């Protein structure tokens, strides 16, 4: 009998901080999810995390997460069993009960959602996810990029309704139909999809991201306690670069087709005095511009942290006067293959520039080979 690591309340706090950092400005606020998860722990439920090495080839793993507008999630509280009912509906359609769950996206509120569902269902959660960050659409996951059909996919709402999308023409149609159903359900729903074997999870998921989120949270709390620079610790842990530091001098933000879109102007401070950058937003931070040049671009992670506290700043709270550090973090290699760039590269967001990856400083990233294996398919 395999046994993973069991999470405690402190883990939930640190995972929530790390998930918000990996949310690259979007992904929804993990705070409410953290409170709900904590409540379940206090009721005596268990949250068990398994490594990739614990996966059996014949495991049945489902991707689980919330779908909808993050701003709605703050006002319209979940009933609490949306994802669980979505999971049950998907299982019913496939006829294959889950043996483990995995997060759709580690960035933002969906880091905690599968932990809650897994605790309710008595299942373990795999240490990994389908994005290694946050993205706005369902098909933007490594699972689907590398050929896992998203369907059957189920949506469940707070009222007791559920819709199973049993087959769709392709993953873009899955996103279209799921999005419209979510809007009708009240702009927030729980979703369970992408039935996978253990072998498929190993092949397609971004590994170790729950642990990474926890480590990020721990580093931030520790640096704050020791009065050291949390931004430096986060940068180091992520193998990223500090692209810029400055004060937010202008925020232009609008709601467009269900997305928060806009642009942020940051004027340099300290070493960056006299310079300025612009950051494009679409739920997440997408592109950093200096003059007419791209400094960093999606799918690489662009993270805004409060200069003092290291607190991640989401696109919806961003406003004039914030002092921020702009970090650039190389995306996981599974997001940078030719195949992946078609789905999550600049062109997928309407840009014409070619993706130039940030240098990968992290010597512990072992996934170069994995990406090479995946690409030719």
């Amino acid at each position, binding site marked *: 009998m395999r046994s993973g690591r069991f999470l405690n309340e402190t883990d939930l706090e640190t995972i929530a901080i790390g998930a918000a950092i990996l949310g690259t400005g979007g992904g929804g606020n993990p705070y409410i999810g953290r409170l709900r998860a904590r409540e379940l722990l206090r009721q005596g439920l268990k949250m068990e995390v398994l490594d990739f090495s614990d996966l059996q080839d014949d495991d049945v793993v489902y991707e689980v997460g919330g779908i909808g507008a993050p701003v709605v999630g703050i006002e319209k509280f979940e009933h609490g069993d949306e994802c669980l009912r979505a999971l049950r509906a998907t299982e*019913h359609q496939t006829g294959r009960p889950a043996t483990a769950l995995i997060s759709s996206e580690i960035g933002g509120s969906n880091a905690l959602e599968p932990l809650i569902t897994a605790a309710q269902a008595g299942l373990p959660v795999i240490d990994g996810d389908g994005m290694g960050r946050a993205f706005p659409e369902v098909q933007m996951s490594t699972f689907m990029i590398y050929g896992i059909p998203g369907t059957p996919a189920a949506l469940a709402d707070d009222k*007791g*309704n559920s*819709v199973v*999308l049993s*087959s769709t023409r392709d993953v873009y149609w899955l996103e279209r139909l799921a999005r419209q*159903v979510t809007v009708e359900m009240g702009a927030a729903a729980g979703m369970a999809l992408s039935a996978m074997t253990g072998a498929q999870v190993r092949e397609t998921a971004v590994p170790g991201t729950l642990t990474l989120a926890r480590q990020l949270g721990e580093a931030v709390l520790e640096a704050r306690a020791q009065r050291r620079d949390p931004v430096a610790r986060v940068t180091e842990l992520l193998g990223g670069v500090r692209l810029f530091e400055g004060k937010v001098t202008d925020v232009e933000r609008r709601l467009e087709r269900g997305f928060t879109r806009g642009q942020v102007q940051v004027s340099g401070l300290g070493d960056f005095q006299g310079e300025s950058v612009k950051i494009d937003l679409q739920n997440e931070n997408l592109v950093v511009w200096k003059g007419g040049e791209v400094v960093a671009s999606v799918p690489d992670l662009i993270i805004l942290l409060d200069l003092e506290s290291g607190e991640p700043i989401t696109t919806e709270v961003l406003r004039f006067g914030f002092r921020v550090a702009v970090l650039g973090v190389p995306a996981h290699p599974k997001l940078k293959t030719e195949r992946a760039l078609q789905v999550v590269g600049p062109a997928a967001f309407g840009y014409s520039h070619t993706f130039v990856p940030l240098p990968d400083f992290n010597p512990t990233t072992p996934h170069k080979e994995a990406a090479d294996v995946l690409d030719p398919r």
Partner: protein
Amino acid sequence: MSWIHAEDLPDIAFGAAVLGTGGGGDPHIGQLMAAASIRSNGPVELIRLQDLHDDDLVVPVGMMGAPTVMLEKLPSGQEALLALQTLETHLGRKVRALLSVEAGGLNSTIPIGVASELGLPLVDADGMGRAFPELQMVVMTLHGVSATPMGMADEKGNAALLRTIDNRWTERLARTITIEMGGSSLTALYPMSGAQAKVATIPGTITLLADIGRSAREARQAHGDPVEAVRAVTGGFYLFKGKVRDVERRTVGGFARGVAVIEGLDTCAGQQCRLEFQNENLIATCDGEVLASVPDLITALDAESGEPITTETLRYGMRVVVIAMPCDPQWRSPAGLALVGPGYFGYDVPFVPVETRFPARSVGIELVGAG
């Protein structure tokens, strides 16, 4: 009629247009699809409700969406299969017989094509006895039958399985999905046991459709009065005869809403009739007085040919006879009226059965007979 052959379809489609009360979609496309299917797969067995075993799985099938879209976006023929498969997978059972959701309009002939395609019998019954714009407006709702689990599919290969807390939520979610699917979809819903179908549907409506079509055709062939033939076979009443003077039509919330003003002819000369519709004809008034209202059936027929006229094709200059037919008694219960009565459609008038308003039928007949 225990088998439906391709040559039976024109009569059925005619009858469906009469019970369509101006809406429900043009049965012609469904007729063509059914004819093509019967030619390659053979005729469809029409069974009676009492022929069903109590534990048979009976599933109504029908198109959902805007009738105008269905005229342009033709179904591929695979949607029904996919919608039914989705439902069968969920239930873990095979369908024993199909049923029409609504006998009025397009959804009369669609299940015939599907039944032929799948080699399944069709039950001689339906869920409305007419046409209505929303999917919870079936007598099954009055009997507590849930619309879900419901399967639906489009021509692109997309399919969904819905489970909802009530039939209005089914309508909301299925409508949204239908719009995203391109404005029309094929649905398999209200799965029932044979025992449920025996009490929770309206019996004999497919036979009635064929009878209406045959009566009108025979009257035309004998140079008789097809309008009177339709009225007689449906137990209807003449409301008005006249010339369409004005049609005001707009699309509101996915529905064709509007009003036709009809200037009286013959015995109705000097009077004015207003026919208000929302996809279907809802209420007919004459000089401010209600003549008939939903859920009773109101249909405008061409004064010469007896051909039923849809709300989409109604236009200036047409000479029409407006008839009203009593709806199935189930619709006249308090629950039925709450679901589909004048109040639901925004009219602050009490429902009065058409036969109560027109106690002397002979007066009505003379009304037109004089013209």
